[in-house]
């Protein structure tokens, strides 16, 4: 279980997170919605050890990881699929997959190769393109590759930042079905989405982030979709 308490992260004078408290329970899909600039990406980076929060705490299964490095967060089982930057463009598909497991390569190389084969079973289209430069894949394929690569570190918690960004509706559905599938296999998911409709269908818990604060926390049943959309995208004042 991932717990975030009173997290404050700043960029110079800008306070992007003003004390965020939330948790992602083991085996669930937790979804974070919110308008542009709410601080969703900042939150993901702060959890993954890419940004150092000014105060507050992040812990995984009771282990404190606040402000630790990205390698440590990864070692604690947190994998991130960042927004908008999915693959290493001039590396091949297979090299991208290996990149996701590079911390394990020294130890159990054969296990890594097994995991690559598993990824190919899950994503047959990647297997066909294993030698292709990742930057030449379609948007949907790149998203699949990003998920497959994140899974290569065998995470307990998979954090995904707007995986449906810029994808055609059919591909979005595919991405969401993969997310549910991974979740059924036991991976906890922390999902940031703009696509509230899709996200609410698979989420077990929803947080609404607005201007660096949690504006709502509850199950999708606690709040209507219209209400969420109203509050997330038209701003809290309109509600």
């Amino acid at each position, binding site marked *: 279980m991932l717990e975030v308490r009173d997290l404050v992260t700043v960029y110079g004078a800008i306070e992007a997170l003003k004390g965020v408290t939330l948790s992602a329970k083991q085996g669930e899909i937790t979804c974070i919605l919110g308008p542009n600039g709410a601080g969703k990406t900042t939150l993901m980076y702060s959890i993954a050890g890419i940004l150092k929060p000014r105060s507050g705490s992040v812990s995984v299964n009771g282990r404190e990881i606040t402000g630790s490095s990205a390698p440590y967060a990864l070692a604690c089982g947190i994998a991130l699929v960042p927004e908008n930057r999915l693959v*290493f463009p001039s590396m091949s598909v297979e090299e991208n997959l290996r*990149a996701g497991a590079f911390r394990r390569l*020294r130890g159990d190389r054969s296990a890594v190769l097994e995991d690559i084969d598993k990824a190919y079973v899950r994503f047959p289209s990647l297997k066909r393109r294993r030698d292709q*430069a990742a930057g030449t894949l379609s948007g949907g394929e790149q998203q699949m590759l990003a998920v497959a690569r994140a899974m290569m570190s065998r995470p307990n918690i998979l954090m995904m930042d707007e995986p449906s960004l810029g994808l055609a509706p059919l591909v979005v559905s595919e991405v969401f079905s993969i997310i549910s599938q991974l979740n059924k296999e036991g991976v906890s998911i922390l999902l940031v989405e703009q696509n509230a409709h899709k996200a609410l269908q698979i989420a077990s818990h929803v947080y609404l982030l607005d201007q660096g604060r949690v504006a709502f926390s509850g199950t999708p049943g606690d709040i209507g979709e219209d209400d969420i959309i109203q509050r997330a995208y038209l701003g809290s004042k309109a509600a």
Partner: protein
Amino acid sequence: MSEYAISIASNMGMIAFVALSAYVVLVVGEISFGQQAYFGIGAYVSGMATAMWGWPFGFALVLGSCVAAIAAFAVGALTLRLRGLYFAIATLCFAEMIRLGLNSIHVQVEIDGEPVGPDGAEGFGDIRWMFEHDVTTLEYMFIIYALLGAVLVVLLLVERSNLGAVIRMIGQDPLLARSQGIDVGTCKLLVIVFSGMIAGLGGCLYAHFATYIEPNVFNVMLGVHALAYGLIGGLGTALGPIIGVVLDIGFLEGVRAIQGYRMIAFGGLVAILLIIMPRGILDEVRIHHIKRWLRRQ
């Protein structure tokens, strides 16, 4: 081999060190306009070691490259937070600082009644190790190529290793690399230090080949050429910058008929290649295809 051919070949070998040093920084995703400074530091320090202090050549090489590596460490540590244009400008400023600093360094000792040592803008002559030890230019050329070969082997081995993959990941997307659990800062610093060491070693060789060096040899044009060699030859393998060097010095300068037009032809070559092959002749994708082809054979 004629003296002319030896001198062209030796030049190619020595410039290849700067080209390789600029190349490794390019691979980690930054553009440095300052690699000539490490070349200069290596040249001055090793020249002082043999000519002024009477050190053996081998020790002078080690000292020259280590001092260059230390300078690279300092620059790398100071510029670690800078990216893109800011990094490029910072490295350029540092290199100019070194060059101007060399202009005002006067440390000379008296040897056989003659002052020996760097004399500011007047340069630093009498680096006579080759004559004192009866090393012919041909023999010296072999020393250059043996060391270049050793550096190349190290680079090619690193490229095949996990470290090589990590360096490429950082070069393509440092943030994404970090989210794969890579310590981007440390890796970058390591690469920059190594780049300083390679350029420094080249500088050591250069000083003892030329016997006379002056600060202006290490001006920014050397650094710009070093960058261009990687961009022409390709960023997919350490052999790329070597191809760039061979094309420019070996072909454009070496073939006498077109000698006078070297800079024009070179500028055109860079411009055209950057348009049709933005990451050089041997870029990552082509290298990948070649490797696959070799595996199948």
